[in-house]
Protein backbone atom coordinates (compact mmCIF):
# COMPACT_ATOMS: atom_id res chain seq x y z
CA UNK A 1 0.00 0.00 0.00
CA UNK A 2 1.24 3.48 -0.94
CA UNK A 3 0.76 6.19 1.62
CA UNK A 4 0.88 8.96 -1.03
CA UNK A 5 -1.49 8.73 -4.00
CA UNK A 6 0.06 9.75 -7.36
CA UNK A 7 -1.33 10.55 -10.79
CA UNK A 8 0.63 10.28 -14.02
CA UNK A 9 0.93 13.24 -16.34
CA UNK A 10 2.66 14.04 -19.63
CA UNK A 11 4.72 17.23 -19.34
CA UNK A 12 6.07 19.07 -22.39
CA UNK A 13 8.56 21.94 -22.43
CA UNK A 14 9.38 24.51 -25.06
CA UNK A 15 12.08 27.05 -25.91
CA UNK A 16 14.37 27.97 -22.99
CA UNK A 17 12.22 26.03 -20.51
CA UNK A 18 12.95 22.93 -22.62
CA UNK A 19 16.65 23.80 -22.85
CA UNK A 20 16.97 24.36 -19.09
CA UNK A 21 15.08 21.21 -18.10
CA UNK A 22 17.05 19.30 -20.72
CA UNK A 23 13.99 17.40 -21.96
CA UNK A 24 11.27 18.15 -24.49
CA UNK A 25 8.79 15.88 -22.75
CA UNK A 26 8.48 13.39 -19.91
CA UNK A 27 5.91 11.38 -17.98
CA UNK A 28 5.81 12.13 -14.28
CA UNK A 29 3.88 10.86 -11.31
CA UNK A 30 2.62 13.88 -9.42
CA UNK A 31 1.54 13.68 -5.75
CA UNK A 32 -2.18 14.21 -5.33
CA UNK A 33 -1.41 17.11 -2.99
CA UNK A 34 -0.36 19.12 -6.10
CA UNK A 35 -3.59 20.75 -7.22
CA UNK A 36 -2.77 23.72 -9.45
CA UNK A 37 -0.36 24.66 -12.23
CA UNK A 38 1.55 26.92 -9.81
CA UNK A 39 1.86 24.06 -7.33
CA UNK A 40 3.05 21.77 -10.11
CA UNK A 41 5.76 24.28 -11.07
CA UNK A 42 6.76 24.52 -7.41
CA UNK A 43 6.93 20.74 -7.10
CA UNK A 44 9.00 20.50 -10.32
CA UNK A 45 11.49 23.03 -8.86
CA UNK A 46 12.31 20.52 -6.13
CA UNK A 47 13.26 17.82 -8.64
CA UNK A 48 16.79 19.05 -9.34
CA UNK A 49 19.03 21.91 -10.41
CA UNK A 50 17.81 21.94 -14.01
CA UNK A 51 14.19 22.29 -12.88
CA UNK A 52 15.10 24.88 -10.26
CA UNK A 53 16.77 26.90 -13.05
CA UNK A 54 13.88 26.50 -15.51
CA UNK A 55 11.33 27.64 -12.91
CA UNK A 56 13.53 30.13 -11.03
CA UNK A 57 11.18 32.93 -12.04
CA UNK A 58 7.81 31.18 -12.09
CA UNK A 59 5.99 34.45 -12.90
CA UNK A 60 7.33 34.40 -16.47
CA UNK A 61 6.73 30.74 -17.24
CA UNK A 62 3.43 30.17 -19.06
CA UNK A 63 1.42 26.97 -19.06
CA UNK A 64 -1.14 25.11 -21.14
CA UNK A 65 -3.34 22.21 -20.10
CA UNK A 66 -4.39 19.88 -22.88
CA UNK A 67 -3.15 22.52 -25.35
CA UNK A 68 -5.16 25.43 -23.93
CA UNK A 69 -3.62 28.44 -22.20
CA UNK A 70 -4.21 28.45 -18.43
CA UNK A 71 -3.42 30.72 -15.49
CA UNK A 72 -1.16 29.61 -12.61
CA UNK A 73 -4.17 28.96 -10.36
CA UNK A 74 -5.78 26.55 -12.86
CA UNK A 75 -6.58 23.10 -11.51
CA UNK A 76 -4.61 20.22 -13.01
CA UNK A 77 -7.40 17.74 -12.27
CA UNK A 78 -8.14 15.71 -15.40
CA UNK A 79 -5.10 17.04 -17.29
CA UNK A 80 -3.42 14.58 -19.62
CA UNK A 81 -0.79 16.95 -21.07
CA UNK A 82 0.63 20.04 -19.38
CA UNK A 83 3.05 22.33 -21.22
CA UNK A 84 5.44 24.92 -19.77
CA UNK A 85 7.00 27.59 -21.97
CA UNK A 86 8.18 31.21 -22.02
CA UNK A 87 5.93 34.03 -23.25
CA UNK A 88 5.32 33.50 -26.96
CA UNK A 89 7.28 35.34 -29.64
CA UNK A 90 5.74 34.14 -32.89
CA UNK A 91 4.22 36.22 -35.65
Amino acid at each position, binding site marked *: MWSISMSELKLVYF*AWVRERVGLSEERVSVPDSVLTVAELAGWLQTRGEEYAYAFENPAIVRAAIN*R*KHVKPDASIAGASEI*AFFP*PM*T*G*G
Partner: protein
Amino acid sequence: MTPRLTIRIQSEPFDAAAEIEALSRLGEDVGAVTSFTGFCRSEGGRLAALELEHYPGMADDEIGSVVTEASTRWPLFGVTVIHRHGKMEPGDGIVLVVTASSHRTASFDAANFIMDYLKTRAPFWKKEYRADGTSGDWVDAKSVDDALAERWKV
Protein backbone atom coordinates in the same frame (compact mmCIF):
# COMPACT_ATOMS: atom_id res chain seq x y z
CA MET B 1 -21.83 34.03 -45.59
CA THR B 2 -19.54 31.17 -44.66
CA PRO B 3 -16.02 32.49 -44.97
CA ARG B 4 -13.19 30.43 -46.43
CA LEU B 5 -10.75 29.94 -43.56
CA THR B 6 -7.31 28.54 -44.33
CA ILE B 7 -4.70 27.87 -41.66
CA ARG B 8 -1.34 26.29 -42.33
CA ILE B 9 1.57 25.63 -40.00
CA GLN B 10 4.49 24.56 -42.16
CA SER B 11 8.25 24.60 -42.50
CA GLU B 12 8.16 25.34 -46.25
CA PRO B 13 8.19 28.90 -47.59
CA PHE B 14 4.83 30.36 -48.61
CA ASP B 15 3.79 32.21 -51.76
CA ALA B 16 2.20 35.43 -50.49
CA ALA B 17 1.21 36.54 -54.00
CA ALA B 18 -0.70 33.33 -54.72
CA GLU B 19 -2.51 33.48 -51.35
CA ILE B 20 -3.52 37.12 -51.85
CA GLU B 21 -4.69 36.36 -55.39
CA ALA B 22 -6.78 33.41 -54.17
CA LEU B 23 -8.63 35.54 -51.58
CA SER B 24 -9.07 38.36 -54.12
CA ARG B 25 -11.00 35.94 -56.36
CA LEU B 26 -13.64 34.87 -53.83
CA GLY B 27 -16.42 36.53 -55.79
CA GLU B 28 -17.48 39.84 -57.26
CA ASP B 29 -18.27 41.42 -53.91
CA VAL B 30 -14.76 41.22 -52.52
CA GLY B 31 -13.96 44.92 -52.24
CA ALA B 32 -10.99 44.88 -49.90
CA VAL B 33 -8.05 42.56 -49.36
CA THR B 34 -5.48 43.26 -46.67
CA SER B 35 -2.27 41.27 -46.34
CA PHE B 36 0.44 41.29 -43.73
CA THR B 37 3.75 39.48 -44.16
CA GLY B 38 6.24 39.24 -41.32
CA PHE B 39 9.87 38.61 -42.32
CA CYS B 40 13.02 37.41 -40.60
CA ARG B 41 15.28 40.47 -40.10
CA SER B 42 19.05 40.73 -39.78
CA GLU B 43 18.76 43.57 -37.21
CA GLY B 44 21.44 45.64 -38.88
CA GLY B 45 23.58 42.61 -39.70
CA ARG B 46 23.57 41.24 -36.14
CA LEU B 47 21.60 38.07 -36.96
CA ALA B 48 22.30 35.26 -39.41
CA ALA B 49 19.06 33.36 -38.79
CA LEU B 50 16.08 32.75 -36.57
CA GLU B 51 14.81 29.35 -35.56
CA LEU B 52 11.11 29.09 -34.81
CA GLU B 53 10.03 26.40 -32.39
CA HIS B 54 6.32 25.65 -32.04
CA TYR B 55 3.88 23.47 -30.10
CA PRO B 56 2.28 21.26 -32.76
CA GLY B 57 -1.44 20.86 -32.37
CA MET B 58 -1.81 23.76 -29.99
CA ALA B 59 -0.45 26.15 -32.65
CA ASP B 60 -3.18 25.06 -35.06
CA ASP B 61 -5.84 25.28 -32.35
CA GLU B 62 -4.86 28.76 -31.21
CA ILE B 63 -4.61 30.18 -34.72
CA GLY B 64 -7.90 28.48 -35.53
CA SER B 65 -9.56 30.17 -32.55
CA VAL B 66 -8.33 33.62 -33.43
CA VAL B 67 -9.36 33.23 -37.08
CA THR B 68 -12.81 32.01 -36.05
CA GLU B 69 -13.14 34.91 -33.61
CA ALA B 70 -12.16 37.37 -36.38
CA SER B 71 -14.77 35.90 -38.73
CA THR B 72 -17.40 36.38 -36.01
CA ARG B 73 -16.44 39.99 -35.37
CA TRP B 74 -16.18 41.13 -39.00
CA PRO B 75 -18.01 40.17 -42.22
CA LEU B 76 -15.29 38.31 -44.13
CA PHE B 77 -15.24 36.28 -47.34
CA GLY B 78 -11.99 34.62 -46.40
CA VAL B 79 -8.99 34.51 -44.12
CA THR B 80 -5.65 32.83 -44.75
CA VAL B 81 -3.01 32.48 -42.06
CA ILE B 82 0.28 30.70 -42.66
CA HIS B 83 2.90 30.47 -39.93
CA ARG B 84 6.24 28.83 -40.56
CA HIS B 85 8.48 26.97 -38.14
CA GLY B 86 12.11 25.94 -38.46
CA LYS B 87 15.19 27.94 -39.41
CA MET B 88 14.84 31.12 -41.41
CA GLU B 89 17.25 33.68 -42.82
CA PRO B 90 16.82 37.44 -43.14
CA GLY B 91 14.33 38.16 -45.91
CA ASP B 92 12.43 34.90 -45.45
CA GLY B 93 8.71 35.21 -44.72
CA ILE B 94 7.70 33.92 -41.28
CA VAL B 95 4.00 34.68 -41.13
CA LEU B 96 1.29 35.67 -43.61
CA VAL B 97 -2.20 36.94 -42.82
CA VAL B 98 -4.66 37.75 -45.62
CA THR B 99 -8.26 38.87 -45.15
CA ALA B 100 -10.95 39.54 -47.77
CA SER B 101 -14.14 41.50 -47.15
CA SER B 102 -16.57 43.77 -48.94
CA HIS B 103 -15.30 46.66 -46.88
CA ARG B 104 -11.96 48.19 -46.14
CA THR B 105 -12.22 48.58 -42.38
CA ALA B 106 -13.38 44.99 -41.86
CA SER B 107 -10.44 43.59 -43.82
CA PHE B 108 -7.92 45.93 -42.15
CA ASP B 109 -9.18 45.44 -38.61
CA ALA B 110 -9.50 41.67 -38.96
CA ALA B 111 -5.90 41.34 -40.22
CA ASN B 112 -4.61 43.63 -37.48
CA PHE B 113 -6.58 41.76 -34.80
CA ILE B 114 -5.31 38.38 -36.01
CA MET B 115 -1.69 39.55 -35.91
CA ASP B 116 -2.09 41.05 -32.43
CA TYR B 117 -3.53 37.81 -31.09
CA LEU B 118 -1.04 35.59 -32.90
CA LYS B 119 1.79 37.48 -31.22
CA THR B 120 0.50 36.85 -27.72
CA ARG B 121 -1.35 33.52 -28.01
CA ALA B 122 0.15 31.35 -30.75
CA PRO B 123 2.76 28.98 -29.26
CA PHE B 124 5.83 29.91 -31.27
CA TRP B 125 9.23 30.94 -29.94
CA LYS B 126 12.13 32.55 -31.81
CA LYS B 127 15.76 31.72 -31.17
CA GLU B 128 18.49 33.94 -32.56
CA TYR B 129 21.57 32.77 -34.46
CA ARG B 130 24.13 35.55 -34.53
CA ALA B 131 26.08 36.60 -37.60
CA ASP B 132 29.35 36.08 -35.65
CA GLY B 133 28.59 32.34 -35.49
CA THR B 134 27.78 32.19 -31.78
CA SER B 135 24.51 30.69 -30.69
CA GLY B 136 22.02 33.31 -29.71
CA ASP B 137 19.34 34.02 -27.19
CA TRP B 138 15.64 33.38 -27.21
CA VAL B 139 13.82 36.50 -28.35
CA ASP B 140 12.10 38.25 -25.43
CA ALA B 141 8.36 38.82 -25.58
CA LYS B 142 7.46 42.48 -25.72
CA SER B 143 4.99 43.92 -23.27
CA VAL B 144 3.81 46.20 -26.10
CA ASP B 145 2.44 43.08 -27.81
CA ASP B 146 0.22 42.36 -24.81
CA ALA B 147 -0.99 45.94 -24.90
CA LEU B 148 -1.78 45.67 -28.61
CA ALA B 149 -3.81 42.51 -28.07
CA GLU B 150 -5.64 44.15 -25.13
CA ARG B 151 -7.08 46.89 -27.36
CA TRP B 152 -9.53 44.44 -28.97
CA LYS B 153 -11.20 43.51 -25.70
CA VAL B 154 -14.84 44.51 -25.56
